[in-house]
């Protein structure tokens, strides 16, 4: 019997963690073990000297679950900070995608026009294909991909969301 049902919300969390073996497994295992959602996950070292990595997780859940996720993450020993970018205000969120389209004739023209209007770059071209690179908010990329769908979309590779708070302060 679940407790009071509240509507799910989408939250973007930023974590600063020790860049040690197993830290990502610890975080992913926490989400899967406790049945939380991961919509997107990015991770990379941000400070070589202090061996810190920054992880951006986009998750959805009822407010009580989001609170749980943050507390559960925060009590992991190698996790230094957990910041909910969705709570602190409009953060900058960006994602990069590489998208391959295959086709000939008019279709190629159409694909190039769409790519141009989305300010995507063409990073690979053959006589029958393009690879586009696009950076933007996830929903912009969604839209771009859906427009390319009927024009011979072959595959998509997305990085997941990287996010940072606005203003002068660090997380």
């Amino acid at each position: 019997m679940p407790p009071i049902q509240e509507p799910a919300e989408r939250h973007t969390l930023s974590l600063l963690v020790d860049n040690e073996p197993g830290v990502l497994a610890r975080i992913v295992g926490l989400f899967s073990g406790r049945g939380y959602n991961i919509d997107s996950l990015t991770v990379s070292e941000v400070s070589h000297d202090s061996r810190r990595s920054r992880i951006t997780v986009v998750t959805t859940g009822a407010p009580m679950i989001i609170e749980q996720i943050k507390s559960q993450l925060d009590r992991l020993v190698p996790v230094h900070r957990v910041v909910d970018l969705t709570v602190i205000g409009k953060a900058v969120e960006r994602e990069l995608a590489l998208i391959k389209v295959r086709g000939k004739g008019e279709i190629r023209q159409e694909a190039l026009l769409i790519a141009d209007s989305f300010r995507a770059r063409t990073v690979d071209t053959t006589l029958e294909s393009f690879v586009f690179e696009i950076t933007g908010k996830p929903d912009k990329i969604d839209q771009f991909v859906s427009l390319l769908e009927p024009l011979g979309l072959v595959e998509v590779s997305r990085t997941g969301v990287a996010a940072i708070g606005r203003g002068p302060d660090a997380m």
Partner: protein
Amino acid sequence: MMREMTGAEMVMQALIDQGVEHMFGYPGGAVLPIYDAMFHQNQVRHVLVRHEQGAVHMAEGYARSSGKVGVVLVTSGPGATNAVTGLTDALLDSIPLVCITGQVPTHLIGTDAFQECDTVGITRPCTKHNYLVRDINDLARVLHEAFYVAQNGRPGPVVVDIPKDIQFARGMYVGPENIQHKTYQPRLKGDPEKIRQAVELLAKAKRPVFYTGGGVINSGPEASRLLRELARLTGHPVTSTLMGLGAYPAADKQWLGMLGMHGTYEANMAMHDCDVMVCVGARFDDRITGRVDAFSPHSKKIHIDIDPSSINKNVKVDLPIIGDVKHVLEDMLTLWRAMKIEPDRRAIADWWVQIDKWRARKSLAFTPSDRIIKPQQAIKALYDQVKDKDVYITTEVGQHQMWAAQHFHFEQPNRWMTSGGLGTMGYGLPAAIGVQVAHPGSLVIDIAGEASIQMCLQELSTALQFNLPVKIFVLNNEYMGMVRQWQDLLHGGRYSHSYSESLPDFVKLAEAYGAVGLRCANPADLDATIAEMINVDRPVLFDCLVDKTENVLPMIPSGKPHNEMIMPDHPEALDEAISEEGKMLV
């Protein structure tokens, strides 16, 4: 202190420097260097177990009864995987352990080498933290850090996995001085403003209740003392979870008994009808709350916990206070006195009148028989004979565990060791051995069932080897009683594989181990046989044949709120107690 030594020597030196006196373990290929280093010292005494699960439960019993960190040493592969049940048990019950596991040499990791397993991978979700040491120069720091993490904040088990080549390698040993985790710094003091609000809520309460848990025990004996003081000052009733028994004295008139699924009527009704609830070091577990959306519907809830992730996990609270129970209770007491609070004595007196009406239902009542031993009668008889002694109780898991919680009464903390969160059958005997190691002169009794006791019975041999005169009091009803009770409740009394077939002759079995075997089936002989058990200075296995059909009552059926308990005077209500929704729950 800096000194060059081998990794294996560092392990022993770190244990000595951490003040470890006893450890529990089992040797194997990947820990031989550590066993060799152990051979060259006599400060840390090693208890050789018969199965690694036993080692971890022993360390748990040792830790819970002494307040120290329990230490385990096992080999790679099966040594580590056998320890997993105990580690999970310690995680759920917040018991501080350091478990050192051997690992194949670093160059063989990942090759499916003999007795290799991914120990840190397997134990990641069942430890508070774990480490794989790949560099000899990290080893000493990691070992000291492991002790720090295990016992600071919410306690828990920590695994340190040490490849065999690291045990042989030489490096610089550093002592424990000033080793703290660089970022893991749990908050001990509660927010003063929240504490002030809590005291104000308490001052105005008309129907308050203290709902206490294992966190009071974990916070140390001082926390129990402060709880008693606060209860005395306020005059408010106190109940506790299974894990918290003993933090508040059972003989006190403000004690309501245990709450929850098999708690007393007065405790559960007080929880349901209260207007202010103070949860002290407990976590609103499903055994406690019953149906969550009908849990204590009219109360303001204050929750004191050292672990922020316990707050609002199952039940939304009005006033969370993050901090160590001892510190928060101390601040509450100081403030209560400073504010010269006069509680609403008339309202509180009315509240006690109501509670006394609930008490009069006598929810733990049972009818003794002169023909057959009732399990409750057996616990009561045991309690009557040992209550004035220096006694520690452990249990296995099942009906006997609940009867022990209901009918054995505790006046002091750290006297009651039971597997609460994980519910691990086989916990009680090794835990009792661990307790006896920590308290050699005390009376240590494992209250057991005939099914549970067979899950770690091999540790009787450990008890014999180390002259640990633990007593095993088996309530033998020839059923996995709690399973049978739930089959009665949910499955039309079809006892699918819940009977204990082909039971050994426990008396002969005890004798085969070199222990003393006793049996009693006649209520008239019960007291004398218990006296015999207590007076023998050797391990005893007491086979107490009890009523096979008795159920644990009272009971909140799963999916029901606190005010819909099944009482022993109307057990027939059990038949229709559980809804279709409730059947899905455990």
